[in-house]
């Protein structure tokens, strides 16, 4: 979505262009934004790179979680950029833990709160316990702590911010790095374009623990993300949220593109938005037509050396996995996907609230 030319004064033309854009954005997201609190629980002044997609995601998640939370945060970019002594970006109780034990510490917090409640030392109000970690801290080194916490059934939410490599230490591959992506430890050369293995599927792994809730989310789809965080908080027992987090330096993209890339990852089917609730799959962003993966891959430096054959392999696999997911989702009836239409935004006249605000502003007739 390129900016309109600044000098461009033709209102009617702008109205049309904007309508297209608003539709493309989906009104539902505008709605989500209106419901988010203006309070910042992840304060500015943090040292994340300019345009960090993970920082956008964390900010949105924290806005949804509100203040009645206790966070356990594994080391990784978000921990390092938010807490250089003696400053902190956190405005909620937040514990920096080691690389591998976010889930274990969250388990301890949850058990501790339970004990305090039983002894009458704190009242019965709900305090959400949240563990957060990167893809390295989740899919690699933190996997057994996570598995343990899920299996023991602690009432907590685990959020994995997946930027698809170990970014804090300078872009080393993780098991969540996608096939074909170049990192410093899966470098592109004359034969290989990068990572030789397929991305580990954390959703399947966590869901296999029969937890009540697991979902994927992306900062490019705020409404969907907000809904899933809320569900994760409310559901009793362990919940897992896997959030895609574009990283400009690690992915070789320019800073302004990180949200756009997250959106493309969803629209190409590379990162489908779905949830698994009580074993039932549901796609929360369904589309009839997937955008070709090439449009997503070509925009990123880390896929620069991808050959047309590899691109085709990726396309094939994405198509197949999308299809499988769709079939699984169709099995579970009675769920209503979150789309713009399902949100009570559209007035009977068919004009959305955002469109209306804009039309009135631009002085155009209805």
């Amino acid at each position, binding site marked *: *979505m*390129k*900016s*309109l030319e*600044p000098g461009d004064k033709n209102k009617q033309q*702008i109205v049309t*262009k*904007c309508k297209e*854009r*608003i539709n493309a*954005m989906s009104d539902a*997201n*505008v709605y*989500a*934004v*209106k419901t*988010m609190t203006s309070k*910042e629980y*992840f*304060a*500015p*002044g*943090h*040292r*994340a*790179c*300019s*345009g*960090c*997609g993970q*920082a*956008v995601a964390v*900010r*949105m998640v924290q806005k949804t979680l509100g203040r009645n939370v206790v966070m356990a945060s594994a080391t990784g970019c978000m921990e*390092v*950029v*938010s807490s*250089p*002594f*003696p*400053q*902190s*970006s*956190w*405005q*909620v109780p937040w514990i920096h833990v080691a690389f591998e034990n976010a889930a274990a510490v969250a388990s301890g917090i949850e058990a501790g709160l339970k004990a305090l409640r039983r002894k009458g030392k704190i009242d019965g109000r709900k305090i959400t316990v949240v563990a957060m970690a990167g893809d390295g801290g989740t899919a690699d080194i933190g996997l057994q702590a996570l598995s343990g916490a899920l299996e023991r059934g602690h009432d907590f939410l685990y959020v994995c911010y997946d930027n698809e490599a170990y970014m804090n230490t300078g872009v080393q591959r993780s098991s969540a790095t996608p096939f074909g992506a170049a990192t410093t430890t899966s470098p592109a050369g004359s034969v290989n374009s990068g990572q030789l293995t397929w991305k580990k599927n954390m959703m399947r792994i966590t869901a296999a623990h029969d937890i009540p809730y697991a979902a994927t989310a992306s*900062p490019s789809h*705020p409404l969907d993300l907000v809904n899933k965080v809320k569900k994760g908080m409310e559901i009793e027992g362990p919940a897992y949220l896997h959030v895609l987090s574009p990283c*400009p*330096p690690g992915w070789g993209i*320019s*800073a*302004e593109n*990180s*949200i*756009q890339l997250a959106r493309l990852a969803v629209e190409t089917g590379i990162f489908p938005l779905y949830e698994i609730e009580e074993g039932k799959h549901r796609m929360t962003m369904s589309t009839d037509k997937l955008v070709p993966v090439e449009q997503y891959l070509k925009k990123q430096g880390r896929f620069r050396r991808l050959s047309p054959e590899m691109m085709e392999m990726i396309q094939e696999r994405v198509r197949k996995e999308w299809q499988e997911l769709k079939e699984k989702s169709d099995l579970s009836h009675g769920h209503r996907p979150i789309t713009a239409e399902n949100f009570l935004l559209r007035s009977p006249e068919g004009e959305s609230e*955002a469109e209306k*605000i*804009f039309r009135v*502003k631009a002085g155009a007739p209805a």
Partner: protein
Amino acid sequence: MLEIRFHGRGGQGAVTSAELLAQAAIEEGKYARAFPSFGPERRGAPVSAFCRIDDKPVTLRTSIDSPDVVVVLDPSLFNAVDVTRGLKKDGFLVINTKKESKQFMFEGLKQLAAVNATQIAQEILNRPITNTVLLGALIRLMPIVKVDSLISAVQTRFSGKIANLNVQALERAYQETQVLSNNGEQTLELVSPKNEFAGKEKVGKAAKEDLDYLWTELSPGCVVQPGSSRDNHTGDWRSCLPVIQKERCIQCGLCWAFCPDAAQVQKPDGYFSVDLDYCKGCGICAMECPTGAIHMEKELEL
């Protein structure tokens, strides 16, 4: 031993400057060691790099706290970092500025070299990477190494067209650098950034005071002030600034939602305005604004 400290921003090449200078010195048969200082900061954040040159082997591997020479690659750093911290008496300062150079002179400084490095870099390299430009200014101020050795270091480091352009930039800086000697009158004027959100509540203590804490002075389990990173003004990382055209804005708030740095702030009239203290100039808001109400403009140099 000569100790030189470079101050730049992530991506501007401060580390490369220190390394090139060391390489040139080594080529001349001297001993040198160069290394950067790493912090949690990312792209655009202030960084420093160190270079030591001597006639005997350099074994010291610590950061340089009392340099003989300080080189400042970015004019905005004067407001962000205490660049002359620990500078030796009768030391030297090399700066990138388009301002009148004498206002940067201060007591105790022996000589000052000033060059409009951003302009030279923009014109020759087409991007504000000022490292080789400031090396040109540095050796104009004091012939630490010969121009030829530095050029040869640049040619070893870079190749082809990039090498040539960097050599051009270095040579032009050498020509255009102004060197001032102290006559004991002027004082250093630090420019304060224009802050439209001035008077905003401070969350923690002033950052500088805080940094003087020792961990032993803190009570066990102590927590630093929540949200005190607000004292860290990341606005000075920015090289582009989002400009909002009100007449296009539908107040949807997407710019606010997608900003990684909470730098879009809604005013009572419903419109959004950019908090210059924190906006890193990433451009996400301009990209995501559904009505194209935001465009990015090059940040004017202080």
